[in-house]
């Protein structure tokens, strides 16, 4: 884990094969479309990329997976998918809690107390700077 010393460049990180890039602005529209096409939301994976979060949304239809890749600055709010796929609320709450990702329009908000208790560390999944 040496790359955390310098400003992390986006290209330093591997990109999942076949992932489709997406931005905050067209995320909801794209996901709505996927929903109409009958995709299932499998899960989302969040990665700490220094200044940014990289979030993969994994979908599946007829045994083929589709990955959406979203890069957002840490301060930015990500629109919640929980109104399209109800099940997203748990995934997003987890990201919010473990990584500190901000979401707008969360269906059920556990307020960072889904898995962690009062005496736990906050956002424990972030990469430690002195690691």
């Amino acid at each position, binding site marked *: 884990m040496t790359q955390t010393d310098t400003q992390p460049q986006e290209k330093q990180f591997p990109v999942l094969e076949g992932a489709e890039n997406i931005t905050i602005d067209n995320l909801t529209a794209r996901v709505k479309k996927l929903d109409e096409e009958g995709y299932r939301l499998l899960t989302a994976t969040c990665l700490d990329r220094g200044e940014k979060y990289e979030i993969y949304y994994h979908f599946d239809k007829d045994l083929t997976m589709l990955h959406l890749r979203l890069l957002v600055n840490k301060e930015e709010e990500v629109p919640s998918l929980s109104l399209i796929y109800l099940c997203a609320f748990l995934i997003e709450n987890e990201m919010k809690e473990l990584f500190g990702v901000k979401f707008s329009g969360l269906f059920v908000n*556990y307020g960072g*107390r889904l898995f962690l*208790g*009062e005496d736990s560390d906050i956002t424990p999944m972030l990469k430690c700077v002195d690691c």
Partner: protein
Amino acid sequence: MKSGILGLLIVMPFIIGILCFFLRNDLVRRFLVIGNALALIGASIALAMSGNGSFTPPHEGINWGQLIAIGDFFLLAVFIYLGIVRKSPLIIGLAALQTAGLIWLEFFAGIHGETSPALYGDYLSTIMVLIISIVGSITTLYALPYMQEHEHHIHIPVSKQPRFFMYLTLFLGAMNGLVLSNNMMWMYFFWEVTTLCCVMLIRHNGDEEAVNNSYRALWMNLIGGVAIMGGLVLLHIQHRPMAFQELIAGGRYEGFLLLPIALLCIGGFTKAAQMPFQGWLLGAMVAPTPVSALLHSSTMVKAGVYLILRLAPAFENTFVTKMVGIIGAFTFVAAAMLAINQSNAKKVLAYSTISNLGLIVSCAGINTPLAISAAILLIIFHAISKAMLFMAVGVVEHNIESRDIERMEGLLSVMPFTVFIMVIGILSMILPPFGAVISKWVSLEATAKMPVEMFLLVMGSAFTVLFWTKWIGRLLETTPGKPTPKMEKLPFFYVLSFVFLAVTVLVLSVMAGPLAGKVVAPAVMQYYPAAGIGQAQMNLINDAGSFPVLSIFTVILLAVIIPVLYLRMKECPGSSVYMCGENIASSTGTAFRTLKDSSSEMQLSGYYFDHFFSENRHIPWMNPVAVILIIVLIGGLCF
């Protein structure tokens, strides 16, 4: 001597009532009410001591019969007036019907109340007089502080207490008159007086609901009045005596001859709020609590069951007896079932009253000596317990501003004394060795040979246990580890009535054997060959079984006292309750931690089984069934 006692019992309350109305002074009223109560209690005891006998008021000076007739017309006029004010053709019609009957009887048929004796106090009447005068008087005493508080609560500018106490005392007089009348015309008069008092008391608060409910009470009771009037007219047409004693002594009747008696019974059903006439009694709970206590325990509804019980020997072993038994048993089950869904304490009490009256009616209908004994025992114990319960609910209502049973959760730690009384009251309704259960035992043994009634009775008893237990459960709910509650401060008359009634119910329960042997059995044996019930030492026995009252009482008493003493010596360590490991120490002691690590109050509530027992679900079939049963009763006699 006798006339003095009767005067005290019947006439004095009328006079004191009127005095209460005109002497608008709190202190004077207080003395009048207390004096009235003392006099009534004394007189009733004196009456009981003097044995049964007849009495016709002296003719000199006043023509009592005419006076009664004038009173009748006056009352009917009042009813018609009320009907006009309400613009209710129903009320006007029912009152007019009675007026027509009365006019025919008085002016065309030429009866002048000359049956003799006009008043007759047998054992049954004496028992009724005792209940009315003692429990009723206690209720008036309870009403003294209650009405003060009540008017304070609802912010009334001008006190309406004079009117209130007038009707209250009048009521007692009328009831005494009713149960002592031998002449049916007299009975009819007193009957209508109780109707009037009841209606006026229900509408006492004057708000819309009260007024509406009072009109409902009026027309329902007028139906009863019409039935009675019909019965009287019919009796006259059939050239039969219009006096109870002679009617009963006249032997057993058949078929059409039973019709007047059946009509009188229907009159009784209305007053006793039997299905389908239960509506008015439920509506009556809008009245101030002393009124409810009075209506449900010693007066009004008891007039209904009294009438049926009085007539019972006249329809022994007939079609009427079968139907009355079934109608009563049906009411018993149906009302108990409906009570389960209620969380309004007064409504639960009301349904319970209806249900118990159903049981009494049913016993009267079963009409064996044992059943009649059961009915009398029930009347006695129900009166005491119910008075106690209503009074306690009234006190609670003034303190927590609610009569919702759910709001009484954990009341034990706020008002231990009142709750104690309430619990005694409830337990006295459902648990051996209390009197009500002894009576129920007697009635069960009495019905064992009547499959339908027995079946209904068993079901009803089960329901009864359900709603009462639920209620006490709410009251007793306590949080472990809380300090022992302090006794609350209550006005003297509250404490007096509570203690008096609680002690009475306890003593009478323990004395159930002697009570049955010395009081109930003679009352039954007056009209039946045997009593079916008796005492063996302190035990209550009948032909088929025996209730070892004293031994059960002793054992249970010890079972309560020993742990109480033991716990007094040994403080049990307080600990928070089990909440799946997430209990937290909070001020309430009953919070648990839940999502987001936040704390949440645990809430508990009783079950109401909306799906199974709601009024909406059952009333629509219960009322028609009850109506059909009554139609069958009448129809069966006509055809």
